[in-house]
């Protein structure tokens, strides 16, 4: 602490330069916060995917159906404690730009398998009573202003024609990263009205008694339907969610690439700033060493300066990003989730400090190696 004033005073030497460098960190870490938020929005499903759930899809493609008769055979596999199913509906609400996911799900088993979805008891009961009922996520309801009791019309694209639903309830997630931008409606309503594909489902989701049995059970199920017209591919829900998200492009790669470029640029900017700062202060550093500051002490002073700049900029940028995400999804619900977890804020802060250390390292080493006699001669 006794050296803090010395380090802090050096930051005030060139106020504009320090402010701009802190500003670079602020912008970079704000961007980091947004990238993490977007990554979670796209891959959040993969991150929150239950480790005790498996998805069974048609081996040929996710868009190919599976017979509904598979349900009982899957449920009979030892270690499977629950089975539910869903089908992608692909309806349009008013205009195609108002995209949101809609799934026809089994009303009796869906919420047993997806225990992280929370619906009020009376709303759940209303959903069970009405064949045309649907449940909308809190985010989706907010985006379009849906309320319980609303009549919600969709234009079918896979199964053409007008489809009408009654909003029976609004579901929330037990965690902030649960996707609440979906519409869930009863599979029996789809089955009753659709013109083709009757007796099939999009995919099955099953719950395991023991997550450690995932590999064995996957193989058992796939073996069960081998050489049939509808062979299956059973995978963890995380793998399923990732492949689902990849249909929109490799978001993870994109985010990582942008993030890496931003941090590398930041490293160069800060490294350059610190190198200039050390060069300008050669004489003063020599004086410090003359009066007895040890080499490691001088190294620490420069590193502390660099880390202090990084820390200040980092914390401002991350808090701004957090505030921004608290303001709500700017796409008005297009993204599944829009939140920046505190754990990611912590990781970002650690990254900023890391960049500060790396950027300050070479200038700090050159300051440490400074020969007092040579430096004083240049003063």
């Amino acid at each position, binding site marked *: 602490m006794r050296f803090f004033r*010395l380090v802090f*005073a050096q930051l*005030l*030497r060139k106020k504009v330069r320090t402010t701009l460098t802190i500003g670079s960190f602020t912008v970079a870490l704000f961007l980091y916060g947004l990238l993490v938020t977007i990554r979670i929005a796209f891959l959040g499903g993969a991150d929150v995917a239950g480790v005790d759930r498996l998805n069974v899809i048609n081996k040929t493609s996710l868009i190919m159906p599976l017979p509904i008769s598979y349900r009982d055979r899957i449920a009979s596999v030892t270690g499977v404690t629950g089975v539910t199913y869903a089908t992608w509906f692909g309806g349009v609400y008013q205009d195609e730009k108002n995209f949101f996911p809609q799934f026809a799900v089994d009303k009796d088993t869906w919420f047993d398998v997806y225990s992280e979805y929370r619906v009020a008891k009376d709303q759940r009961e209303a959903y069970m009573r009405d064949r045309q009922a649907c449940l909308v996520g809190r985010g989706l309801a907010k985006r379009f202003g849906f309320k319980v009791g609303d009549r919600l019309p969709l234009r079918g694209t896979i199964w053409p024609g007008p489809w009408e639903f009654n909003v029976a309830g609004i579901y929330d997630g037990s965690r902030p990263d649960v996707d609440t931008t979906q519409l869930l409606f009863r599979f029996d309503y789809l089955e009753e009205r659709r013109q083709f594909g009757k007796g099939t489902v999009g995919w099955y989701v099953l719950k395991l008694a023991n997550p450690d049995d995932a590999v064995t059970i996957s193989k058992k199920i796939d073996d069960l339907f081998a050489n049939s017209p509808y062979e299956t591919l059973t995978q963890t829900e995380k793998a399923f969610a990732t492949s689902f998200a990849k249909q929109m492009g490799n978001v993870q790669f994109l985010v990582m690439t942008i993030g890496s470029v931003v941090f590398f640029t930041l490293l160069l900017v800060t490294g350059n700033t610190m190198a200039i700062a050390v060069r300008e202060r050669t004489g003063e550093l020599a004086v410090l060493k003359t*009066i*007895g*500051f040890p080499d490691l002490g001088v190294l620490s002073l420069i590193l502390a300066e660099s880390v202090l700049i990084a820390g200040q900029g980092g914390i401002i940028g991350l808090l701004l990003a957090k505030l921004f995400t608290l303001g709500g999804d700017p796409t008005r619900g297009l993204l599944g989730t829009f939140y920046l977890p505190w754990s990611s804020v912590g990781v970002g802060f650690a990254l900023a400090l890391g960049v500060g250390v790396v950027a300050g390292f070479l200038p700090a080493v050159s300051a440490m190696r400074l020969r*007092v*006699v040579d430096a004083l001669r240049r003063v």
Partner: protein
Amino acid sequence: MVKVDGRGNGDSLVRARNLDKRYQRGSEEIHVLQGLNLDVERGEFVAFMGPSGSGKTTLLNLLGGLDVPTSGTISVAGDEISNMASSKLTAWRARHVGFIFQMYNLIPVLTAFGNVELPLLLTRLSKAERRRHVEAALGIVGLADRMDHFPRQLSGGQEQRVAIARAIVADPTFLLCDEPTGDLDRKSAEEIMDLIDRLVHEHGKTVLMVTHDPRAAERAHAVLHLDKGVLVEGRGTGA
């Protein structure tokens, strides 16, 4: 009594024997100091004079532990410093040497107080103790009322006085002054020399000073001339 013949008694505070310093500049070897001997007793005030390039500053750097001799030995207050490891030498400097430079070399972003406090940051003194020491040092140089001023708010003479306060605040064994009046006008130079005089006579400090200024040298107990790397006896030296 200052001696340069290598026959000083064992009580010398500063003792140099057969001091040699050579530099390599390209293919040319420069022999800056040649077999130099020196004995300075505690409480003495010695001035080194000589033309530019005669090795005055090199000698000061060697005595202050900022540089190491090519050969020969230096001991200060019983510590043999010529072969000391770099880290030990740094700690030794902090404890034993107060440096005063021609260009003051204050840290511009620190106040007078902050500059004077710097050597004390390396000690175990508490904040309150450091404050007491800094106030005392600034009091000695007559700048107690300027402790919150930054170097840019002080005159050249005042800056040098702050530098002197920084040099004495940790109560070093001796002071090394490299042209302390070289950047000052006559009046300020006289004030600085009065101050150094007081440090010697009232506070018992040992001072080794390099100077080009004969008036400054007049204040010293002994004046030694360096010529082509060899110390020549001058006023106040003895066999």
